[in-house]
């Protein structure tokens, strides 16, 4: 087995995982698919580059700022695309469309500010150091991508499992009406959930831009499909599932490119996705919800 490819798979896979964790968090808690998530990912990549290029921040200092920007976008998404639909019988479909619309507005605004062209980080933004791991070349950025993903995933896991806010999220996921009855401010939980989700998606976007040193307006679409595949494979609403699913997808892609051919790379995600949906719809880590009679 090729160690270099294995590591490359892990690095790209952890970006997928970070993106998918945010995606699945909203699905798990609010039962909504937020299709503005990929737009946040894209916005974050451009904002990250501007912070470094114009703001003169180092790439490491830019990340926390991007995290906050993502969180604010999440609040906007909740307020504009989801809260007004509360209680509507078609809230599922309508939420998809309203988040698509908001995503379109975000991307249009990006185009206004940055133009239609590919943007790159200024030269010398990245540390030159590379490390040798088991005979493979690894850059500092790649190590950071893996570490940041793990830290954020663990942090989120603790937040959901151990804190008062996390308890509110779990209660809302179980039954929003009952959560409201026992005194949980469901609107605030929804807003916070979207803010956290978007903050994670934003960090994923900035890391992705660092990994390939470029940002394009269309970069969200490709990862959107992969994110959907990952959350289904891992199990909708399962955070560990999204993490493992993301890493698996990254590895599977890298090895497909190496052994089969680059044009087949994208089929991996969907082949995997389809098999899982037909054979085990609850995903690798999901649990089946019992339908009420």
């Amino acid at each position: 087995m090729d160690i270099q490819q294995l590591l490359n798979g892990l690095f790209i896979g952890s970006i997928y995982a970070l993106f998918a964790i945010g995606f699945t968090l909203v699905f798990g808690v609010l039962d909504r698919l937020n299709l503005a998530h990929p737009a946040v990912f894209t916005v974050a990549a451009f904002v990250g580059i501007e912070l470094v290029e114009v703001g003169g921040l180092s790439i490491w200092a830019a990340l926390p700022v991007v995290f906050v920007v993502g969180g604010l976008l999440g609040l906007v998404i909740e307020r504009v695309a989801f809260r007004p639909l509360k209680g509507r019988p078609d809230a599922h479909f309508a939420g998809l469309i309203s988040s698509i619309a908001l995503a379109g507005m975000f991307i249009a605004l990006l185009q206004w500010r940055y133009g239609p062209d590919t943007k790159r980080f200024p030269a010398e933004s990245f540390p030159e150091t590379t490390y040798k791991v088991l005979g493979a070349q690894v850059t500092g950025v790649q190590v950071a991508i893996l570490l940041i993903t793990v830290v954020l995933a663990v942090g989120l896991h603790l937040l959901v499992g151990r804190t008062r806010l996390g308890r509110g999220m779990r209660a809302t996921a179980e039954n929003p009406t009952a959560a409201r009855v026992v005194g949980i401010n469901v609107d605030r939980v929804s807003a916070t959930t979207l803010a956290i989700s978007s903050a994670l998606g934003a960090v994923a976007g900035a890391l992705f831009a660092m990994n390939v040193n470029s940002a394009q307006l269309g970069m969200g679409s490709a990862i959107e499909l992969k994110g959907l595949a990952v959350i289904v494979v891992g199990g909708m609403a399962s955070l560990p599932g999204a993490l493992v699913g993301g890493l698996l997808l990254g590895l599977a892609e890298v090895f497909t490119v190496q052994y089969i051919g680059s044009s087949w790379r994208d089929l991996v995600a969907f082949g995997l996705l389809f098999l899982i949906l037909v054979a085990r719809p609850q995903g690798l880590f999901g649990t089946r919800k019992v339908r009420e009679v």
Partner: protein
Amino acid sequence: MPGDATLVFIAIGGIFAFSFYAVLVAGQLSLGQAGFAAIAAFGSASLAPAPSEVGEIPALLIAVAIGMSVGALASIVLGLPTMHLRGVFLAIATLGFAEAVRILIINTESLGGAQGMSVPKVVTPAIAWVFLVLVAYWFWRQGPSRYGRALAAIREDELAARAMGIDVGRHRLQAFVTSGAVAGLYGVLWAYFVRLIAPEDFSFTTAIDGLVTAVVGGSTLFVGPILGSVFLTLVPDLQRAIGIDAGWIRPFLASLLLLLVILFLPGGLAGLIPRRVRMPAITGTDLGSAVAGLDPRRHPAAGEQVVRLRGLSKDYGGVHAVRDVDLEVTGGEIVGLIGPNGAGKTTLVNMISGLVRGTSGTVEVLGVRPGRTAVHRIAAAGVSRTFQHSRLFPRLTALENTLVGSHVVARPTFLRRLLWLPSARHDERQALQHAARCLERVGLADKGAVVASALSYGDQRRLEIARALAADPSLLILDEPAAGMNRVEAEQLSDLIGALGRDGLTILLIEHNVGMVMRTCTRIVVLNFGEVLATGTPEEIAGNPEVVEAYLGSAETEEEPR
């Protein structure tokens, strides 16, 4: 005036939106249409004869036939393994299929790979609009047919639709295949208009555009997809015409408009069109199916077996909800089922109507075996029920709810409606009459045009009964029909149930209002902790001290509200 290309794009965009409409009316979200369209476009481009050989129109018609067939075929292949998926899961599975198709095409040399194929340009605005009108006609005729109402019922409440005798799996697959065929038509028309087809024409973005068009236009009225396509195709043109063409303003305004439509026009653009619901004039009062011109049903005569339970039990984990129940009900009986909360009454009737399968023991109802037979077949055999918590179809009118109830006795009308056969019109009118009579019978004659969710609580309970009656059932199961009714309403309901019994219906009544049960029923069964505590005539039950103790508790802890 919009140019030729704009006219064509409106028409084929509308057709593509109809392929989403086809499944949205049944409450399914599919994103596989771009895949069906791609298979149809590339399939017909490779298989159909060239226009230079057979003439332009014949070549196009052959291509359309090929495209719609392969679209339908692909949707069967995809639909069979995925029809058990719901909501977002179905959307993602179908999206995965569409992406897989696209990638396969990119990797197929004979289809031109990523460059795609060139196709002769045959489609003119006139041709595109003829096809759009045909598709719209199809869905216009589908809406108010028995089939169309069944799809709407599935969208509104799948479980209730099942209990009304609708074969949900078959209907969902039919809607899915219709969607596949229409998407195939779109693929072919697209191919024969744009000259060069590439796999990128059938990407995720394409599918999203189609979905957005259908939802913005409105997915409950057949003109919706056309309105959506006109709107979304013309917005960029309009913006260009009034001189807004900075690169980013156009997509920004288009997205903003989309957001406003989805937030403030819940029914899409078609929701702006006022809906008129006409109540049919009621002639006669008979509820029997033979008289209503529906498929006749023979009800069991007095003394004939209707329900037979033997040793029936149901465990949920360690909880014995129902334990070893034997019960027989014969034709014309009105059996009251009473017992404290949690005694297993609802579980018992769920097993009788086939929604829940018993852990052990046997159920036999009207010659079928609930639990082993699909729920819709139990309903078709003549079992009709109401639910403890109303499960009406909230966005359908009272009349439409009742019409759905008559699904098992009404004749299918969609295909005959497509051909404008007078018999379809006649059957529809009979079904309407029947539904109106059922509404009148429960006292809702003047509420037929009101949507179910807007009815008062008591009226919703009554509508559930009317909907159940519309199936002309042999066994009517009423699960707490008087809950939330005042004394006068409960008395009226009691009279109605008595009258239905005299008409020959067999009725199983669950009710907490003991007075009403005593007054209405010919026999009473008392359940406690899942077991039959006592059974007998109202007088016997009233005098049974064990029942009084179990049901009312001892005097100190009594808190019976009624």
